[in-house]
């Protein structure tokens, strides 16, 4: 193919084809009939709603909730160990499921989302195929769930009704999540909020199946009822520590990824706020006009995306208005408002991974009274070095209420370590809560008057001399 003796380098014409190494098995029309599509679980409320949408469209879908030690083990075995934790978990969960014997391997397909940004997450689907091949499941088709046209399959297409339903599903999911979280921590009868969420998920599934529930009119009615339902739950509103969770999208939502963070915080007697999934969607859409603004490019495309964004925001407004009608509830912010918060902190051009949205969510949470924040990320998550950990100093400079703890998640981080750091954040939070006079409980911090025994046990003269020396430096 090339001249070896001739000394200088010669152009290579036909390099080997990677696609032959790991062939892509398409998901065909035929397969749609009797294949079961497995989807890894992330945000439970949202994904249950989306699952209903897919089921209504004639797909056999199952959400994977297996979470034993086998999941991580499979992931470590078949995925490069330095890859981000979410990829390792998601792929591990799928392989664990395939190996469980529950599924007919010749009638099973996998579905995974593909975002297509500059983050390595766009490569999950390729990592999954590589893992499947290594594990001997090369025959299993993988369906890419994307709206950017990265990969297409004849047997799976997002139709307009599906898209509408899915979008509405995301908005409903955000609403249900926001409402239930605010109620859950205070409900008199434990479990009422969760029960109500289940009822609504079922109800919305029924409505979608009858091609109802996703027009703006229906959404308005549903949301008003939903907010009123949650408002009706009887609460004991004693002040609690309010904690926000932000971070890389998978570890932020998935309990498998974050060692049941929400449950842990609930055990620690906190109210939890998790910013919605719709904002992430809007953030992705927003990237197109943003790029055109920064670097130039297709103006028509940019305007189309802007219009789409506006439309989705109008759906978001319905949810916000319904929740905001009850002053006891904190309603999510409109995307445009969230976006405006990062001005002077980070540019909206920073759009790999969670990008500026993560920073924006932290600021928004602080402004809404959720200044105690757990910032979750997989160990070595590149975008979060920038928009998470990298921005904490600036955020604190702006607002002293910020009490942020970044927590890394990976297969080798121990839960004890993570929880200990979160407890530190909570200890500071508790003190702040008590300082604000919201609680009658005796504060942790004892009075600062020097106790009598100090004269004996602490070398005060030494201390003072040292202090004077310090001052004169």
């Amino acid at each position, binding site marked *: 193919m090339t001249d070896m003796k001739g000394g200088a380098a*010669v152009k290579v014409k036909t*390099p080997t084809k990677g696609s032959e190494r790991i062939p892509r098995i398409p998901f065909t029309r035929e397969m749609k009939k009797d294949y079961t599509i497995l989807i890894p679980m992330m945000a439970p409320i949202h994904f249950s709603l989306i699952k209903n949408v897919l089921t209504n469209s004639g797909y056999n879908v199952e959400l994977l909730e297996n979470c034993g030690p086998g999941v991580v083990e499979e992931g470590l075995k078949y995925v490069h160990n330095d890859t*981000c934790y979410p990829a390792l978990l998601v792929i591990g969960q799928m392989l664990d499921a395939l190996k469980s014997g529950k599924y007919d391997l010749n009638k099973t397909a996998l579905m995974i989302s593909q975002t297509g940004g500059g983050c390595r997450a766009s490569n999950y689907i390729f990592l999954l195929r590589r893992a499947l091949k290594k594990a001997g499941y090369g025959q299993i088709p993988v369906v890419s769930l994307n709206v950017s046209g990265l990969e297409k399959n004849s047997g799976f297409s997002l139709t307009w009704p599906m898209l509408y339903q899915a979008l509405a599903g995301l908005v409903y999911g955000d609403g249900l999540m926001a409402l239930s979280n605010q109620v859950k921590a205070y409900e008199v009868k434990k479990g009422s909020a969760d029960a109500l969420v289940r009822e609504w998920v079922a109800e919305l599934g029924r409505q979608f199946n009858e091609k109802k529930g996703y027009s703006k009119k229906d959404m308005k009615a549903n949301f008003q009822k939903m907010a009123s339902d949650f408002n009706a739950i009887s609460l004991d509103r004693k002040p609690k520590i309010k904690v926000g969770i932000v971070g890389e999208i998978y570890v932020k939502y998935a309990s498998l990824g974050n060692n049941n963070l929400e449950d842990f915080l609930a055990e620690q007697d906190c109210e939890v706020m998790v910013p919605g999934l719709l904002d992430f969607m809007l953030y992705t859409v927003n990237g197109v006009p943003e790029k055109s603004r920064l*670097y130039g490019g297709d103006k028509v495309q940019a305007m189309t995306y802007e219009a789409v964004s506006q439309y989705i925001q109008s759906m978001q407004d319905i949810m916000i208005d319904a929740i905001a009608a009850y002053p006891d509830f904190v309603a999510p912010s409109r995307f445009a408002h969230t976006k405006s918060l990062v001005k002077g902190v980070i540019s909206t051009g920073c759009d790999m991974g969670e990008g500026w949205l993560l920073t924006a969510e932290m600021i928004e949470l602080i402004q809404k009274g959720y200044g105690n924040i757990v910032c979750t990320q997989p160990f070595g998550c*590149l975008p979060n070095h920038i928009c998470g950990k990298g921005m904490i100093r600036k955020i604190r400079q702006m607002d002293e209420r910020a009490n942020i703890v970044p927590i*890394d998640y990976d297969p080798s981080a121990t839960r004890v370590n993570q929880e200990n750091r979160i407890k530190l954040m909570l200890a500071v939070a508790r003190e702040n809560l008590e300082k604000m006079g919201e609680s009658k409980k005796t504060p942790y911090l004892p009075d600062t008057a020097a106790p009598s025994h100090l004269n004996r046990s602490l070398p005060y003269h030494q201390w003072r001399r040292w202090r004077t020396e310090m001052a004169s430096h």
Partner: protein
Amino acid sequence: MRIGLDIGSTTIKCVVLNRYDEVIYESYQRHYSQITESAAKLLRQLAEVLPNVKQAKLAISGSAGMGLAESLAIPFVQEVFGTRIAAGRLLPAADVIIELGGEDAKILFLTGGMEVRMNGSCAGGTGAFMDQMATLLEVNLDELNQMAERAEKVYTIASRCGVFAKSDIQPLLNQGARKEDVAASIFAAVVSQTIAGLAQGRPIKGGVVYLGGPLTFLSQLRASFDKSLHTTGLCPEHSLYFVALGAAYSAEERIELAGLAERLEDYSKTESYAFMAPLFADEEEYRDFRQRHEKAAVDFHEPAAETAGAYFGIDAGSTTIKMVMVDEEDRILCNSYQTNNGNPVPMVRQFLQEFYEAWPQIPIKGSAVTGYGEDIIRRAFRVDYGIVETVAHYKAAAHFMPEVDFIIDIGGQDIKCFKIKNKAIDNIFLNEACSSGCGSFLQTFANALGYGTEDFARLGLFGQRPVDLGSRCTVFMNSLVKQAQKDGASIENISAGLSISVVKNALYKVIRPTAAEPLGRHIVVQGGTFLNDGVLRAFEQELKTQVVRPTIAGLMGAYGAALYAKEQKEKIPNSKEGGKPGLLTIDELKAFSHAVASANCGLCSNHCQLTINTFSGGRRFISGNRCSRPITNKAEDHRLNLYEYKRRLLEEYRQKAAGKMGCDEEYPIFKDKVIGLPMGLNMYELLPFWQVFFNALGYRVMVSPASSRELYLKGQGSIPSDTICYPAKLMHGHIQYLLEQGVDVIFYPCMTYNLDEGLGDNHYNCPVVAYYPEVIAANEPGLERIKFIYDYLGLHRPKEFPLKIWQILWEKLDNKIGLQKVKKAAAKAYEELEKYRQKVEAKGHEIIAQARQEERQIIVLAGRPYHVDGEINHGIDQLIAGFGVAIITEDALSPLVEKHPGTVLNQWTYHSRLYAAAHYVGTQADMNLVQLVSFGCGVDAITTDEVNDILEENGKIYTQIKIDEIANLGAVRIRLRSLLAAVGGEKRDD
């Protein structure tokens, strides 16, 4: 009455306060990870000391106390918070508290905006880390402290985590560095880690207080902090007990003391941990196992007067030294296996001398040495051959199993695995610095728990519920084991669990095989760690196959070296010293002496810290050098090193930017503002572009210099994320440099996209390269004084670019600047960038042609453009060049390859070059690719697999080198020499 219990990762502390909050009892004990037992014991002691107390306000704190508190329903106080409460009462004047514990490091900023910080999960241990280091030096902590007092110099030791530091220290010791200096260096590393990891840009000033065990007991550690912080901190009374005091002060709930100790013990009986199948079901199974493995034996033969000749093999490993004498029939005459105590030289001398004295009539016909200490031993004793470990091990393995196709060796610090194909080493897997520590890890652990290594290993054989520790890095393992102990795991089950996890580390972190592709059909295992039956059994269980462990598993390197010496001598009977074996004679041995001195090399700007070993007869061995100049005293040969060419070319641009080298004639400087450019990440390769662009607009440009350790230290205080890659961390230093130089403007744009070179599906930068300017802007306080331009720019759109940058410059730099002028400057800049590219490509081709003429191997040292920086790659290019091969970069080859489909989303410009270069290398017989990967690079988790696949598909060996702050080239040397040994390309002139 208030009681505070602080159960840390290594110690348990207790204070009792009377009703006036006076301390009436305090106790500080190591718990040797027997947490529940120690806590119960402590409570019983308390009952004796305070016989009349039935109830007390009690709270528990400490990292190991959390679970305990929960299960006993005793209030828990987070330990940092506890410190803060105690400090608030006892030290109202303190501004900053630095507290080091067994595994945690904490900084509390008390004044000017209270903030508490704790090390991230990666930073590893501090106290435990120092314990580990002391074990390595074979001293206790007190002695370590005393040694540090007598230090003369400080070496740079990677401070990220224990494993890294260890791999820095070990070679230093092996090369004869003074232990005193190493001790001081360890403290300096801890200080550097604490400041870099925790201060994150916040200055530590005012009244500084030191708390916790290490800082209380180690005066030199305090001195090291003092020096680094330019202050004199205070270590107050009760400095060990602040956490316990905090817990006591916060205790609100009255707890019944009677029965508490019993409840503790009950809790530990639950054995509520995750466990695995036992190694052996019963004694009988173990017996069968032993019998099977005893078959792979080598003959031992008592030396006798009629023995015709002997061959001497030495394996100077990282922690142990192994020596064998082999006779003409490959039988072992005598052998030795011992820890090297940091200096292998006297052991070799003793072994050799004893042999000479016992068998004066047996001639030693040949000798060879391998391992970390190869160079020093070879020089000290005039050993005939120095060979790379992998070759030595293969030689030995082939003796037991000629058809061997896979060898795995787990030694003290390394895991080495290699595949054999056609009697040559085909593929090599070495552990990354991050997951190493296998053998010596088991040893350290055994010692920490109060056992000898062998006893500890034996205990594990019959543990019926081995703890599931997974596969993870040493530092994390510490806390996991503690957690398991807390949950009641017995020592037997922990030992078994550790053996299994060593195997899992080797398999899933280093080799990463899958059931679908077996490792090999004929597997030989060796190395000291496999002498542990538990590890061997776990390996067979995990692979579900039977392997061969030669009875001399620990001696294989030395045995292979001896066989190699024999083979060579049979080929070429006379060594180069005129027919006589080169090895020192008995007389020379008797007069042997060894002195060590340190010096700074002044031959170039690297200023390497050299360790000079001088042996009797004037033989010298110098280590610590990055290049051969201090040894040969000649300037290095850079003809065939494209890295060097690139560095020089970029340095020219740097000079030109400042208006030198005739540049001011081409582009007259007429603006008075000086623009600073930090030389790293996205700026590195684009320097030609920005130099011309700003010069053409009439600005003088100050470019920060090539990175160095000093530069890094300048900026390390403001790095917000301690796990980000080293190239990114260095940017803080570059910015500091520019600030110090007093530039008016620093220009460092964000760039989502790189230029589209048509090789991939997209042309992104990685998130760090793209957006690091945002991090700089948010974390460098100094930038508030000057103008920092870090807008988003898209060079990939040459049409729109001039307008976009004009808008930015007009707004932020000069509102008189004209668009036409900017357009012209941009055009010139694009032209210059193209010129630079062509120069690099042309030089690359020139080197290839020249190398082929001289029949030299060509190594494509592939990475990112900024890996060319000497501080980032730690002189790896020069090291490789020293083997007599040519070095080119990936971007010299990538233009020769057309766009191609891959199995990954090929969406980053720099990475698509990698894939292209790999494809190209696949078509060239005399080229091999070595990939440089920065630690923490998430993107490379994807690229490495793909590059590996591309190369393997074309029958090439894939070699990956992970680089970080780490400055140790020992592992790199093994890898490269093994690669070259496999392709037969080493050309050394010694």
